[in-house]
């Protein structure tokens, strides 16, 4: 189990990580979702020991890691650019750690060869061992990087946007394979990504990094359906967030004055979140009974294949997105520039107290 507590890392005046605490359980696939510049790569580099935190502790299986040099931490790292050794063949890349590591180096050439072959088989690269790393495709390089790390049997594997350099088709396939390989090895993976779909697909647990802290860490379904705060909701790219101040148990937002669940004191800041696919659209006069609504002008639609995204702008300038699924369309034909009623069931609203962060 990897435990981070109170990790702070500053670069000059900028604080990348601000008292972050987080746990990666044993035998789990954890994905870490964060926008670019959120400090997610910094976090991995701190765990791997390429950088040291300004404050806080990193503990792996009860042993303090921070302060130890990277080569004594026994942590695997898969780089975004793969960082293969350009002067070695695929096989030599994979065998590298076994042959040259400081402790537990494998002296027997036969054993090195055997374990290298096993690692290459694990990632589906049998027979590619003699190739140079310049002679294989991006997806294959990714596999070499993975095999090279896994062959040394690290206690935890850190993956820094491992699919970022791959094209979309390959990315989907590698997603499945990464999960399958991890399940076979029973080692924890901490996978950092900026893509919410990737994070939700990969992780048994998804942690959201924002403002230098983990704002939520939970199962992917729980996170998607019930984010605990506005920061987490924002990263999922599936929630409209409207912020405002409370007036007589209602929230004054730039989408109008909307009822909120629960009672809040007047003048308090709060935000409500509405999922893209839980909003229906109708003419202003035809809002069904029992649903809250506000009005907004239809801007434009965006067709993505299985889903269609519609953009609306309220009179006060709030941008609202609505998702329609092609298999079960529920939106009427929309006319650009016309104003519609956007309505939803009262219980679909999530309420977050506090101002916009």
């Amino acid at each position, binding site marked *: 189990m990897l435990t981070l507590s109170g990790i702070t890392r500053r670069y000059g005046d900028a604080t990348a990580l601000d008292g972050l605490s987080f746990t990666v359980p044993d035998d789990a696939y954890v994905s870490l979702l964060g926008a670019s510049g959120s400090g997610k790569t910094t976090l991995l580099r701190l765990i791997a020991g390429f950088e040291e935190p300004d404050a806080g502790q990193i503990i792996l299986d009860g042993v303090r890691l921070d302060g130890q*040099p990277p080569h004594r931490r*026994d942590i695997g790292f898969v780089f975004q*650019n793969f*960082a293969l050794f350009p002067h070695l063949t695929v096989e030599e890349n994979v065998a590298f750690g076994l042959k040259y*590591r400081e402790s537990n180096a494998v002296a027997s050439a036969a054993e090195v060869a055997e374990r290298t072959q096993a690692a290459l088989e694990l990632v589906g690269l049998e027979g590619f061992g003699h190739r140079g790393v310049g002679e294989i495709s991006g997806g294959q390089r990714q596999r070499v990087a993975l095999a090279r790390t896994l062959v040394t049997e690290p206690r935890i594997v850190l993956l820094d946007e491992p699919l970022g350099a791959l094209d979309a088709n390959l990315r989907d396939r590698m997603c499945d394979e990464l999960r399958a390989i991890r399940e076979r090895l029973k080692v924890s993976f901490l996978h950092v990504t900026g893509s919410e779909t990737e994070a939700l697909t990969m992780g048994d647990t998804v942690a959201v990094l924002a403002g230098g802290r983990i704002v939520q860490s939970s199962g992917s379904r729980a996170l998607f359906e019930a984010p605990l705060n506005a920061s987490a909701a924002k990263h999922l790219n599936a929630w409209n967030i409207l912020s405002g101040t409370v007036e007589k148990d209602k929230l004054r937002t730039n989408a109008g004055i909307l009822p909120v669940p629960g009672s809040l004191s007047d003048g308090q800041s709060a935000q409500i979140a509405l999922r893209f696919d839980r909003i229906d659209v109708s003419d202003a006069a035809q809002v069904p009974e029992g649903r809250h609504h506000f009005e907004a002008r239809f801007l434009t639609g965006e067709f993505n294949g299985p889903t269609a995204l519609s953009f609306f702008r309220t009179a006060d300038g709030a941008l609202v997105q609505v998702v329609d699924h092609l298999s079960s369309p529920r939106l009427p034909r929309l006319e650009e520039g016309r104003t519609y009623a956007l309505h939803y069931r009262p219980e679909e609203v999530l309420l977050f107290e506090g101002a916009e962060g």
Partner: protein
Amino acid sequence: MDVRMLRPALALYTGAFLAFLYGPMIVLAILSFQGPNGGPQFPIQEWSTYWYRHLLGLTETSRVSQLPVGDSLLRSLALAFMTTVVSVVLGTMSAEAFRTRFRGSGPVFYLVILGMMVPGVLVGLGMALLSNVLGIERAWWGTAFVLHVVYTYPFAFLVMLAIFNRFDRSVEEASLSLGVSPAQTFRRVTFPIIFPGVLSAALFSFTLSYDEFSRTLFTAGRDLTLPLSIYGTFSVEIYPNLFAFGVLTTLFSFTLLVIYGLLMKRFTGTRAGRFSGQEAVA
């Protein structure tokens, strides 16, 4: 300018450039095959390899004394070799240090570069005076050697700095994360990748030291290096044996360049081709 005119113009320019580069060398090479009675100018009296044999001491005694270059050649080679080793090691180490922008790295950079900027005669003279004051005897392997390092080290440093600028640090981090110690990482990852740069730095250092003149003039002491002893023979009279020697040293330099080229090809060539046909195994 018209594109059709540009190509011939550039060709002409390149031709002139090559002519000026190789012209003197070719004239020298032709004159080195002068007959025993000919002088160091045209016309060629008769074609022969007399002066080459004269140079190697294979001729009957002649009115021209043998060129006194044997010892000084060995000295120059030894000096260039020593200088190369020290400069390349120092250059690589300091370029490695400059990868982390340590405090004061700016001034230190200019101090290092100064070594190749200051006029050679001045440093040479200064070194000679300094060694007099300190009572150190001047020698090619001592005072001159130090100055050769001061002169060539900045070149090696700049070459290695450029190499490290393009160096992807993550391969070193990858090695560390595999449990390989920093020393092994340097040996197994960093050094093989920067090796072409090290070769270039070595070539620079060797060539610069091998024909260094002004710094050596005041600091070499009694035993002369090759450039100094050749200069010494000028002041008496010039015979074609000097040309023969010039041709031989040029050939030696070419050999060095060829070795450099082959090594570069060996270490920078992609592995494409070397392992082609391995798909069959899969």
